[in-house]
């Protein structure tokens, strides 16, 4: 494999200009653990860091010594050297509610908060979580209380959702449909809207048939209330985009050396380039290696077979089989990474070897941080 450039994690963490690190990648590759390990390492190197996670797994909170994370940053550790580590878990409903409460008068806010559509929208997993993660990121950044924000992205059905969903939600809430729904109330029978409303009549008829009249009414109420409160969702989404494109942001694509995860990583790298988002590099978690690399899978398996056929050294044969399997796995993982490196030869890479145990505490996170930095 052509050697990719090495990803220098410490250089990124030590650079005071780095204000936001976004960990993205497929589900189940250890994004959240990577984010937490980076946060701890940054704090131990003197940064005041906050980790914003969307992963509801309690295990992460526990590994940081808390029983649970919530929507407010909590202090995890203040290591020597002046750095600090905070962590929080995104509560998307709470975050959404807060935006409504901040922007609407109490009567309107109540109207929105109790609408069934709002409740579905604000507690759903699709789109809203991504949007609210970005919203929260913006809030943390504006507060300027932390000099480094590390965020892991939601476990979307596809990694790209994270980039698409805020825009889509913004587009929807700002879109033609919303204006149509609110048009009858706003524009009455003004002639310019007549054509629009004729089209709307057809649509409304279909929707009534499909959803029932009450649903449509709820939807209309919700949309006009929301529209009156803030509109401009798309503008907010655009602001977030700009924030992500800014020089202080570093994207880390996280993957495991498996086909799906590496493929997803490739997509992500390409997509980030398209969107002109600053990519710092690729982190490959859970890489298997062997302390006995000079004994190949083929030789090991052949020797095991030889011993087995002779009926000698059963133990050695079993060990050699184990080693052959391990080398085979390592070779496959190597191939999966090779595809990526061939396609993206300039992307810096850091590998983290597979641990035989799960991370349970700060010491475990620290170890991962060390592996990340020494890659």
């Amino acid at each position, binding site marked *: 494999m052509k050697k990719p450039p090495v990803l220098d994690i410490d250089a990124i963490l030590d650079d005071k200009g780095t204000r936001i690190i976004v960990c993205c990648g497929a589900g189940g590759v250890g994004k959240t653990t990577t984010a937490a390990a980076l946060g701890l390492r940054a704090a131990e190197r003197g940064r005041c860091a906050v980790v914003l996670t969307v992963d509801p*797994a309690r295990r992460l909170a526990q590994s940081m010594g808390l029983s649970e994370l919530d929507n407010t940053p909590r202090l995890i550790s203040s290591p020597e050297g002046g750095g600090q580590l905070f962590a929080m878990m995104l509560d998307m409903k709470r975050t959404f509610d807060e935006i409504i409460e901040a922007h609407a008068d109490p009567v309107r806010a109540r109207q929105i908060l109790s609408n069934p559509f709002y409740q579905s929208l604000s507690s759903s*997993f699709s789109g809203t979580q991504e949007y609210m993660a970005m919203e929260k990121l913006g809030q943390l950044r504006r507060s300027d209380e932390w000099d480094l924000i590390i965020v892991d992205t939601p476990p979307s059905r596809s990694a790209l959702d994270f980039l698409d969903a805020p825009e889509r939600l913004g587009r929807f809430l700002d879109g033609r449909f919303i204006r149509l729904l609110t048009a009858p109330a706003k524009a009455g029978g003004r002639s310019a809207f007549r054509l629009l409303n004729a089209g709307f009549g057809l649509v409304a008829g279909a929707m009534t048939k499909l959803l029932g009249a009450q649903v449509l009414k709820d939807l209309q109420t919700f949309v006009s209330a929301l529209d009156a409160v803030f509109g401009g969702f798309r503008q907010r989404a655009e602001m977030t985009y700009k924030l992500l494109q800014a020089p202080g942001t570093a994207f880390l694509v996280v993957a495991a050396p498996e086909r799906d995860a590496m493929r997803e990583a490739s997509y992500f790298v390409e997509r980030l380039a398209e969107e002109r988002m600053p990519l710092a590099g690729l982190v490959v978690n859970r890489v298997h290696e062997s302390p006995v690399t000079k004994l190949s899978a083929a030789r090991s398996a052949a020797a095991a077979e030889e011993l087995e056929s002779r009926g000698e050294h059963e133990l050695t044969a079993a060990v050699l089989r*184990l080693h052959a399997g391990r080398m085979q796995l390592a070779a496959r993982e190597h191939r999966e990474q090779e595809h990526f490196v061939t396609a993206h030869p300039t992307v810096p890479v850091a590998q983290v070897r597979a641990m035989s145990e799960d991370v349970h505490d700060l010491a475990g996170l620290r170890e991962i941080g060390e592996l990340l930095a020494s890659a």
Partner: protein
Amino acid sequence: MESLDTDWDGVRLHVVTGKGGTGKTTVAAALALALASGGRKVLLVEVEGRQGIAQIFDLPPLPYEERRIAVAPDGGDVYALSVDPEEAMLEYMEMFYGMRRAGRALTKMGIVDFATTVAPGFRDVLVTGKTTEAVRRRDKRGKRVYDAVVLDAPPTGRIARFLNVTQEVAGLAKVGPIKNHSELVNGVVKSPETAVHFVTVLEEMPVQETLDGIAELAEAGLPAGGIFINMVRESQLPRSVLDLAVKGRFDPAELALGLKTAGLADGSDASAMAEALAEEIAEHARRAELEDSERESLAEAPLPRYELPLLADGVDLAGLYELAETIRTQGAA
């Protein structure tokens, strides 16, 4: 239909869920192959638009259309369908109301986008609706078109919500066609014709998520199926050796002798190699110990368990058939 004497006789809808990275799609595909073997007809459905089925079977992206993608062992066909919520909505409108034109208008105005993106209850009822329609569908002679349907479902964290469509939609639509439709879906999903299988690997987080998911499912009154323990690494090392290795008391001397006999190394080289291998064994033993305790955790759930091996060369078509065979021999299909 003849009795096949498997653990899931009578089940027609197999819902496969699992945490990301556990190989959910792989297991769903292998299960579909296993269920189809012996001349049956099985539909494999994906709902998240990831084209995972196409990738696994090495095919170009699947359209929104049921098409045959594989032949099972001993005859039998696997069909596949990638459900797109937007298409499902248009189809639904046309099928039940003959409203093709209105459907188009809805799409143009972004309403379908709304229904499928912003209100997940609607999206879920559409894709589960399409799936359960395939389960119920009968041919002209009244025979079911598919012997079984395998659904590659959303991840464990979302599965109860995803299947509990009536609940999800209830808040939005108290009456009306969507509500009725969701009740139809509910009738299938909560019946004994459905089983929700969990895919996990022997690691702490996925196991915990599996147990949480099983509890959540029970709470929602949804029928749990089996636990598929995926990517199990097998080793022929005896228990006693592993125990010694965990404690760091494994003696590499015998190993060195074996390596010499096998002609792999000589003298001090053999000892050095044996020591390095001992390190590998110790790591393997620690991992095995952890896996055993995760196995025990899983045993607390009152569900049948199946173990699928880690395929050293990754999942390719041959590997898929191998997994299907393992599924069959363990009685899961």
